[in-house]
């Protein structure tokens, strides 16, 4: 039984074409004519599905036009709806009226692929800056990515708020702290934010295009550098998508070690984030205490796995490093000490009334809005959405160990901090379970090479949330398209909504509690 398939069948009618070349086979994929693209979205909306991603692929090497894909999610199910646009008339009907996150996905499709979403309310480019040549569509096959682009003059039209006492605060791209670049433009009255417009794309490095020039094997290295803080999860998502296409069966021990890496990454990042949120409320004590604990994790990584952030430890077919009995002992004893310290600090966080005053009821993203925006990960779980790929689409050992997903409904800064606190405790438990019954055996297998014209899909829960990869092999078996959807691709819109009505000085606090990736968004 499939809720999504049942919902879409009446729309498709008898002539439904299901794609057999989409892997893993649990992912339903179908092609619909253009005029039914919106109708399918309507059907999806009716069963409360979320839009996970929308992207386009240049399929001219296959003798087709452009493929436009929308991926929906409901519980553990994913469904991909494809429609085609001929190369001479590259356009498709917009989904923005049904699904809000399509707003940015489609601007991106238009900017980078040159396929127009007809009826989209915002014709401004996204990621593509005003000084790019109009006809530069890097994701098209005809585009030569190795050449530098000339700069042209252009103008970006900001959304303006007008009225008595309204003023504007531009921030960035070079920020005050040690963080990534992005531009924020606030319209405020007094201290209150009445509108925030984000402008991202500063760290666009052409990653999706770069994948197309790499071998399948090398791709995992690049995936590990999409967002440096989520390197294990991104490599893993890439590898799972690839392995689904080649039919590679990953040894059990490797899968368990992958889960171990994922949880270590989650703990390290959550510790850093909680400290940073407290620091932005001028409670530096917490930052220093927690960065000390974070360092413990990074040092374990360095000592046992040879890299502090664990870059390139997940490879196609398995993992590149093993762990011995001594290593297991070390992690267990270090984590025990860490958890004890951590719990003491949580009490301090919880009892500090001036901190409470800053984090509670600040930056609220209501459950309604969270659902409208299809946010994922920590942000979703702090706003009442029970979404976690580890629980809903588990790979071993998660299916055996089980994951308790903390869900809060207040949607404020405190909720996002508290979800992280609970997740750190849960991750420590998961790591214990993994290490207690780590199966023996090989740590990698031959990943193999996918057949031409097939596609692979994966969704992995990184520490920020669900990471989606979609790979497509070309007519000769190389990489035709690699679509990457970092959680930041949807969650940035959540921040714009969460800060409304808050005071400008609370913005850093709200931003830190989201802590979205710029690099993962801009790609």
């Amino acid at each position, binding site marked *: 039984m499939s809720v999504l398939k049942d919902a879409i069948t009446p729309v498709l009618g008898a002539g439904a074409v299901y794609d057999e070349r989409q892997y893993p086979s649990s992912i339903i994929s179908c092609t619909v004519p253009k005029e039914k693209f919106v109708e399918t979205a309507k059907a999806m909306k009716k069963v409360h599905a979320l839009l996970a991603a929308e992207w386009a692929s240049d399929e001219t090497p296959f003798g087709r036009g452009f493929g436009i894909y929308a991926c929906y999610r409901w519980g553990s199910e994913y469904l991909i709806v494809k429609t085609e646009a001929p190369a001479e008339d590259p356009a498709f009907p917009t989904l923005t009226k049904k699904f809000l996150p399509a707003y940015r996905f489609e601007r991106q499709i238009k900017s980078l692929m040159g396929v127009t979403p007809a009826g989209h309310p915002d014709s401004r480019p996204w990621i593509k800056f005003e000084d790019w040549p109009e006809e530069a569509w890097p994701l098209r096959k005809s585009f030569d990515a190795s050449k530098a682009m000339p700069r042209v003059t252009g103008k970006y039209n900001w959304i303006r708020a007008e009225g008595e006492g309204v003023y504007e605060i531009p921030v960035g791209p070079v920020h005050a702290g040690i963080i990534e670049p992005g531009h924020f433009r606030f319209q405020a009255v007094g201290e209150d934010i009445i509108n925030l417009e984000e402008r991202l794309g500063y760290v666009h490095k052409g990653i999706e295009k770069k994948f197309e020039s790499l071998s399948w094997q090398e791709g995992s290295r690049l995936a590990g550098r999409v967002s440096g803080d989520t390197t294990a999860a991104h490599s893993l998502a890439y590898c799972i998508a690839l392995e689904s296409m080649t039919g590679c069966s990953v040894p059990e021990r490797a899968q368990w070690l992958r889960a171990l890496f994922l949880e270590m990454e989650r703990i390290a990042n959550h510790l850093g984030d909680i400290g940073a949120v407290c620091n932005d409320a001028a409670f530096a004590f917490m930052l220093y205490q927690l960065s*000390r604990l974070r360092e413990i994790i990074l040092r374990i990584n360095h000592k046992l796995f040879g890299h502090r952030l664990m870059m390139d430890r997940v490879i196609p077919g398995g993992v590149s490093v093993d762990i011995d009995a001594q290593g297991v002992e070390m992690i267990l004893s270090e984590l025990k000490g860490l958890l004890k310290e951590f719990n*003491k600090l949580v009490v301090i966080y919880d009892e500090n009334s001036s901190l409470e005053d800053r984090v509670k009821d600040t930056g609220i993203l209501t459950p309604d809005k969270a659902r409208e925006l299809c946010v994922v990960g920590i942000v979703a779980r702090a706003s009442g959405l029970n979404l976690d790929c580890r629980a809903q689409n588990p790979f071993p050992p998660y299916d055996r160990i089980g994951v308790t997903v903390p869900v809060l409904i207040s949607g404020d800064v405190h909720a996002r901090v508290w979800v992280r606190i609970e997740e750190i405790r849960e991750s420590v438990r998961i790591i214990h379970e993994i290490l207690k019954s780590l199966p023996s055996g090989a740590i990698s297998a031959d990943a193999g090479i996918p057949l031409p014209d097939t596609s692979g899909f994966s969704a992995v829960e990184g520490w920020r949330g669900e990471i989606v990869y979609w790979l497509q092999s070309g007519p000769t078996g190389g990489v035709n398209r690699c679509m990457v959807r970092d959680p930041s691709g949807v969650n940035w819109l959540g921040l714009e909504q969460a800060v409304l009505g808050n005071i400008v000085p609370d913005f850093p606090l709200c931003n830190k509690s989201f802590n979205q990736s710029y690099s993962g968004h*801009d790609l």
Partner: protein
Amino acid sequence: MIRILRQIFRTGIVTEPLPLEAEAEIKEAGAKLKDAIRKRFSKSLTIRHVDAGSCNGCELEIHAINNPIYNCERFGIHFTASPRFADMLLVTGPVSRNMEIALRRTYDATPPPKLVVAVGDCGCSGGIFGESYASMGGVDKIITVDAYIHGCPPTPAALLHGILRAVGNR
């Protein structure tokens, strides 16, 4: 409050001496540095970090040199919010096309002697991203670089070492 104080006292000072292999060089650099920093930078070195297109990996390790274990402030090094106050720009890369202008402006806003240190394999040479329509390559393709710190990302010890060396070289 008592809990906070107790935790602070129980934790004590966790700052570590730098790793042995770096120690000798750093001592030497440190000795030179004291003079250099005293003369040139009034006893402290102020750094402005610029992410010109990094994946955020280098940023995490730059954060780490501020943690109590690596504690860069003991050398008189601290980070500032504005390039106007900076003696040194710590630039991570590769320089993306969309950040090129912002990087140039930041450089122009920095008063002399404006030391520039390129951080990470991408900052040094473009790394895995290389040169393309969106990536300009290493930092030295855009502005003059005084020192390079390799690594993907460089460890906090390598960062400290590199920063100290850059000042010593001048």
